[in-house]
């Protein structure tokens, strides 16, 4: 998993609250067999609307999503995180995230940074006044910068550590590979094997 220490990219104002995972990616995209290529499913229901923020040239190349409160509610589908990452987002900022979505994101290298709603509003205005404006997300310092706006960002210590180290669940376990090796060496030989 790619390490996340700080990132600067075009901010995308998503002025909607309660964006659930069905809106992030509809169920029809769940039939696929890959882990990548979900960018076309991201916000699929809104992408046909030419006024939708991602359809505006200034925002199309965005990598920092600045969302309304209660982002990522609903189904536990990990595809929601895949879709955001596949589109090119590295961070989502909101005043409140759904727990499962936040957990899924942390495991897959997508930063979910919690900001005060007042700061979100300020950043929205700055981005809307000048599409293409960049937002800097500094996980090390836990601070978000956009023009003159400097906003503190909440990320729990454990998630911050994992993201800065670039450790997904498997990476975390593999730090203990010696313990796994030792355990395997002591396994009884009568245990079954599928390959003979």
């Amino acid at each position: 998993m790619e390490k996340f220490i700080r990132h600067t990219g075009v901010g995308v104002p998503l002025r909607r609250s309660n964006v659930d995972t069905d809106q992030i990616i509809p169920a029809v995209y769940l039939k696929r067999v890959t882990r990548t290529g979900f960018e076309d499913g991201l916000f699929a229901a809104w992408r046909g609307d030419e006024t939708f923020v991602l359809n505006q040239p200034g925002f199309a190349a965005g990598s920092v999503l600045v969302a309304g409160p209660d982002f990522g509610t609903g189904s536990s589908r990990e595809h929601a995180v895949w879709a955001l990452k596949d589109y090119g987002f590295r961070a989502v900022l909101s005043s409140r995230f759904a727990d499962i979505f936040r957990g899924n994101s942390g495991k897959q290298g997508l930063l979910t940074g919690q900001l005060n709603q007042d700061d979100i509003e300020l950043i929205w205005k700055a981005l809307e006044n000048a599409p293409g404006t960049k937002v800097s997300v500094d996980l090390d310092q836990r601070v978000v910068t956009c023009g003159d706006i400097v906003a503190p960002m909440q990320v729990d210590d454990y998630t911050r550590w994992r993201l800065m180290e670039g450790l997904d669940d498997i990476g975390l376990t593999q730090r203990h590979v010696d313990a796994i090796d030792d355990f395997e060496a002591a396994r009884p030989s009568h245990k079954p094997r599928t390959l003979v």
Partner: protein
Amino acid sequence: MGQTLAEKVWDAHVVRRAEGEPDLLYIDLHLVHEVTSPQAFDGLRLAGRPVRRPDLTLATEDHNTPTLDIDKPIADLTSRTQIETLRRNCQEFGVRIHSLGDVEQGIVHVVGPQLGLTQPGLTVVCGDSHTSTHGAFGALAFGIGTSEVEHVLATQTLPLRPFKTMAINVEGRLKPGVTAKDIILAVIAKIGTGGGQGYVLEYRGEAIRSLSMEARMTICNMSIEAGARAGMIAPDETTFAYIEGRPHAPSGKEWDAALEYWRTLYTDDDAVFDTEVTIDADALEPFVTWGTNPGQGLPLSAAVPDPDTFADESERTAARRALEYMDLQAGTPLRDIAVDTVFIGSCTNGRIEDLRAAAAVVKGRKKADTVRVLVVPGSAKVRLQAEAEGLDKVFTEFGAEWRHAGCSMCLGMNPDQLAPGERSASTSNRNFEGRQGKGGRTHLVSPLVAAATGVRGTLSSPADLEPLDLEPVG
């Protein structure tokens, strides 16, 4: 203080334990199928990770596979893609696979035990909630999600927090015509679909000890329908006799060593369960569900319940909604409910013993004209065994369709589905809305009740059938 069976197996698999962190648990056997594995393999590919232990991994095709024309290309594109993806992934990562048409193909939870891979004291996982089936051997077996599938493929371990333990004591003896399916439906009706949440259930008592391995698998299989993470039964001579001589059973000195270990796998007398529940086997009757979750069940002799009689408000609401979906009137005797389809199969009741039991009921009889009867063996081997015993003839002479192995109408991912409004008596495990096809209505039953229902056309037990002139009914 002594330990429960579940705690013994858990402790024997802890790779790493640290304060405040989940235990890292070693996985002995990882079963894989086409629906929950594609993204896991793709995740490995993206990260450049291999499968750590292909020799502890086995794949089979089951959820999507057709039960007719299995030598032709699969018509449904999504199904075909998932199957073809599994085949490619297994080839790329060196995982053994039993594909459609292979003699060892079948439902993953039928194939593992049949090969002798499922053994006492193992940890077994699969991206499928009915992995609890394997607990019948005294294994700690549970379903996992796709991310966890990837985690096990990469590391052969899982970080897990310990489960609580619940004893389900089934005391006494079953009456003739009452089966393992009736026990587990009664258990779920008693503790509720959420009653087992966070628990490993251990089924104990005289009635459990007297069951065959197939019957024990039926019970453990449906532990998840009570919300439990896993179900277990302590291994005994019945277990050892079932395993001995199977392709992957230990042999010679390894058998002796294994047996010595397996005999330590029981709950100590002074162990304490977090919760205990007792069921009186003598009082059980054939059980059927009337609603849309597996906890909404009653003895066949009962009538459709009146939702207003439920004490709990959420249960009242659920019952009202269920009766509406099921198109049933309170007070209707369950025996008067006519079905359109009888499905005999699934990882719950698709084993040879289940087919034998159903065949014994229908032998020499004709199915009701109004009913379609589908018999789907749990594995290709079960199908072959049944054919060797002439059961296929018994079923086809009865008027049933004799199909190839797979999950089939249990979840309708293949063409075997109920049409909207159709009603089934099904030996499977879930009666959720739309589970067997959009708008389909499911009554969960044992193989004996399914067979008798096929004869009369309404929910029935073998005791309801007119005696045959020539042969006794099993």
